[in-house]
């Protein structure tokens, strides 16, 4: 169990070794992005305040800094400890505008905005898009998705839960905007998986 944190303890719970800790987490994310749908075990020592999950915190601490804006969903934004923790450990400014977020942290997938509401990038600069970090509970159960595209030899099955509402249609629309579109990092307890915008998703039959 994660020890409960005292009110002033946002100063704690970061990487014990930010250099090698961040490197290990990044390689895990990179491999997950390069081979979409694979479940990559992630190991780190972060202890963020609840309700932010440790995996989400590790991703934020690895990728976010003063040059990246973070959008927080209502459940995270409402928690002053989470906001302070992110501010202290990343230095990233929080934005209320989903369509201007470099990173979006989604703690409550059931209540998240549409994928189209986030920054999509432009045809000239498709990199100017939001990367969404979703706190999923499972990467081994849930709706079975059949994946294909770059990083996937033939096809690959991914299950995760919970799944955003109307996900199949939303993801198809995201793919139709290519090279614009958002990329997803699915942050589960102890593991991550990614869905870059280049991945095509089909719901498996049965």
């Amino acid at each position, binding site marked *: 169990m994660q020890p409960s944190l005292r009110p002033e303890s946002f100063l704690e719970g970061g990487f014990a070794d930010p250099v090698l800790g961040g490197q*290990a987490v990044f390689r895990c994310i990179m491999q997950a992005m390069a081979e979409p749908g694979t479940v990559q075990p992630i190991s780190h020592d972060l202890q963020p305040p609840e309700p932010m999950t440790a995996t989400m915190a590790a991703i934020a601490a690895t990728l976010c800094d003063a040059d990246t804006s973070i959008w927080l969903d209502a459940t995270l934004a409402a928690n002053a400890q989470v906001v302070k923790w992110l501010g202290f450990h990343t230095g990233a400014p929080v934005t209320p505008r989903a369509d201007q977020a470099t990173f979006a942290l989604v703690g409550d997938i059931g209540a998240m905005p549409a994928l189209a509401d986030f920054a999509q990038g432009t045809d000239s600069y498709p990199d100017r898009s939001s990367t969404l970090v979703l706190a999923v509970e499972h990467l081994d159960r849930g709706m079975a998705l059949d994946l294909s595209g770059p990083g996937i030899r033939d096809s690959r099955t991914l299950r995760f839960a919970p799944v955003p509402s109307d996900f199949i249609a939303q993801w198809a629309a995201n793919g139709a905007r290519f090279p614009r579109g958002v990329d997803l990092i699915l942050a589960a307890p102890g593991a991550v998986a990614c869905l870059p915008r280049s991945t095509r998703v089909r719901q498996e039959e049965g």
Partner: protein
Amino acid sequence: MNTEARAFDWAEAPAIATYNFAYLDEQSKRMIRRAILKGIAVPGYQVPFASREMPMPYGWGTGGVQVTASIIGPDDTLKVIDQGADDTTNAISIRKFFQRTTGVRTTTATTEASIIQTRHRIPETPLTAGQVLVYQVPIPEPLRFLEPRETETRTMHALEEYGVMHVKLYEDIARHGHIATTYAYPVMVQGRYVTDPSPTPKFDNPKMDQCPALQLFGAGREMRIYAIPPWTEVTSLDFEDHPFAVQAFDRPCALCGADDVFLDEVIMDDQGGRMFVCSDTDHCNGRQQAGHAGEQET
């Protein structure tokens, strides 16, 4: 300013008292890591990044070095090649740089490496899943020689206006009877982005297609990073009546007898003696150790 003439040599340099792991500061690594993830998500698209000063001049692979420095960790085994060889000044210097700044294991064996930084070649030994190939790229924009303006090439990529590239290749055919481009031969990545494979010989282009390894490209002076994920379609631009073909060699390697590899011409003596040998020294040594032999004729 003449930085090119002043070669750096980490074998001779005094140990630096304090440097970050892999030299780069953490903020720079994060910025490059974010660019790498975007590059992977949009295969073949050139992601702009703020290139950092490295303790070596441009032309020594600073883009590739920055990419390697941003991904490498203590568990990695690094191989560095220059034109296929592990033992050129450039390859040795970069290998020593990472040995000095990270302490990681290094190797010359393609099969043992988790990260391979390369200038101008893809190893002959097939790459495997989990490996990362980092290319040093001088000119990342395949359209640059046809259109010097960055705003224009960016729009051409956005609109998939690649007709000018086909016109250029077709002019080759009209003039030479075949496509004369033999290095940096442009490729189409996953049917969307025309991409520069870096100045590798076109012999290596087919190795990029459906490669099990992740391919990352770093251009330091031009400040671009791009990527080709594993298992991605990479096709060389061509025409129905002039299909793409790799260079063919009319003889096998003089040292190991391989007839399916890229060969370099080596001058043997001042009487003009020469022979053709594998440009991939690790591949050639491995074959010789396995008992393969060439004719060693001069």
